[in-house]
């Protein structure tokens, strides 16, 4: 990394514009473990009491953090699993099978992907109510998965499009059935896409806020984002330290996942954009 002198002005400009962000992140970390004196920016003594939510209920009537975390995990992973499973098959069909109405499916996907889903929230509310799935994890899992699907299908179609036809023809010539060709020869070629999609939809589920807020407001179905929302809204005197500590706790898995799977996540831009 030997930068030429000319790069320094650019770095400087970028640094100036990023400073507010950096300060925000910095205080997010600092404030979660320290209690600054009022009106001062310099952190005072170390104070781990902000993290008390880990070992006790912050007040009665709220679920424990572990129940909420469990909910969030179930919500995010089930959604990711559903989205990936359906996108894997639907993407293949759209990429390879000559079915009636295929161009309309493709156009529809793009529209759905760009569609502001929040406008559907009342309709979804009514549907969930009618199905008896209102205020259940299953309900918001189904809704979230459905809304994520257009993106997933589109990404997977892009990955399938890069697999040469000849590989499939060769597989068929070698005597394998269409299904076996797909499972044994094609899927291994789109594995990077599968991994990326799985991670991305997990992260998307992990940070989802509006759907659980509106469609699963009860405390038994609370996820971390709505839990945080409740913490900051309820109290007359907002406990910012506690809020920031929960925020840290909430974002640690995301950071860890990004650090571990960086390479797989970059893949989606390599393969997906060719769609």
């Amino acid at each position, binding site marked *: 990394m030997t930068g030429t002198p000319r790069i320094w002005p650019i770095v400087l400009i970028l640094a100036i514009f990023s400073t507010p962000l950096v300060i925000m992140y910095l205080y997010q970390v600092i404030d979660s473990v320290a209690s600054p004196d009022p009106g001062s920016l310099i952190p005072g003594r170390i104070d781990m009491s902000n993290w008390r939510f880990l070992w006790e209920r912050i007040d009665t009537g709220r679920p424990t953090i572990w129940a909420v975390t469990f909910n969030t995990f179930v919500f995010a992973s089930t959604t990711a699993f559903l989205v990936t499973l359906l996108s894997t098959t639907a993407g293949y069909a759209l990429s390879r099978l000559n079915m009636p109405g295929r161009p309309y499916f493709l156009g529809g996907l793009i529209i759905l992907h760009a569609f502001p889903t929040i406008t559907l929230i009342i309709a979804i509310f009514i549907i969930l109510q009618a199905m008896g799935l209102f205020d259940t994890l299953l309900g918001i899992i189904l809704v979230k998965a459905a809304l994520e699907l257009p993106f997933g299908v589109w990404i997977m179609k892009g990955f399938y499009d890069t697999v*040469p036809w*000849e590989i499939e*023809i*060769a597989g*068929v*010539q*070698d005597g*394998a059935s269409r299904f076996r060709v797909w499972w044994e*020869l094609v899927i291994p*070629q789109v594995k990077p896409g599968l991994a990326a999609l799985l991670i991305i939809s997990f992260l998307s589920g992990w940070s989802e806020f509006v759907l659980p807020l509106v469609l699963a407001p009860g405390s038994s179905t609370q996820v971390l984002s709505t839990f945080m929302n409740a913490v900051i809204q309820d109290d007359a005197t907002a406990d910012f330290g506690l809020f920031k500590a929960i925020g840290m706790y909430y974002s640690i898995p995301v950071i860890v996942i990004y650090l571990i799977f960086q390479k797989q996540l970059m893949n989606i831009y390599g393969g997906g954009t060719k769609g």
Partner: protein
Amino acid sequence: MELRLTKFTKAFGPVTVIENMDLTVGSGEMLALLGPSGCGKSTTLFAICGIHKMTSGKLHFGDRDVTAVPAQQRSVGVVFQNYALYPHMTAEQNIGFPLKVMRHPKAEIAAEVRRLADLVQIGELLDRRPAQLSGGQQQRVALARAMIRKPDVLLLDEPLANLDAKLRLEMRAEIRRIQRETGITAILVTHDQVEAMSMCDRIALMKDGEIVQLDTPKQMYANPQSQFVAGFLGNPPISFLPAQAEEQLVIGRGQAIKRPDGLEARGEVVLGIRPEYFGPQHGTGLSGEVIFVEPQGREELVDVRLETGGMLRAILPAGDPVRLGDRVNWGVSSRNILAFSTDGDRL
């Protein structure tokens, strides 16, 4: 095993690509489907391997009617232009895949893979993945995979197109050797006339979905049935020259060539003169100016613009003193002239 295609028709929607084509490939024969792109040779190949359904017609392997048999059960080995190896499998797994699908015991698969690997001479590369193999080696793996099932027919779809010139020469000989050694019936699809001529027993030259001539390479070169065939075969290509067939073949303004024996046509004709039949070694008779000299090492390619218009190509041994801009008066070997009617049929 003999392959017989009868009244084969293939249409994609309203577009008929091939109509009523008949083709028989003898047992153990290697036949080239040669033609420019879009002539229907790949369509024919896909119909034989079962990827495309035939619109009408029949396909027999030996006595077995396979017209309605799905690709998986046809016993056809295919080698593709880009080899189509399975990137996530080693060479050994690639070659063994067809037997694995057929649920052969592991030990038997391993032994067969070994045998094929020896045949195509890649024994020491079996644990590599395709990405770790050179083009020629990938080609050999693809060939071994296509042959491991002992298929009735081997189809080669432009197998040499992705190789560099030197390797192409080597693999040309290799594929022919393997085909001869195993006695398999093979069809080579190519647009390269040199490949077709050098590798195959017979060539089927296709144009616009029809076989325009089916012959041995030698016959097709010496005795083309049409101007298209004559123009397609031969490198450097043949030159065509319009002429008036009278007592002599008059090219214009007093320049004329002796009529070849047996030519009876009168009136307007098109003469086809291969480069090796025009030049100083054939005497004199046609004068013109050298407009292009292309040294090729062993020989030189010379283009001559005739005084009457029109152009002839000659091939001379290297070191010939002819220079760009020279005026020359060279002869034509008149018994090797090919004459065509103005609509391209051989006269």
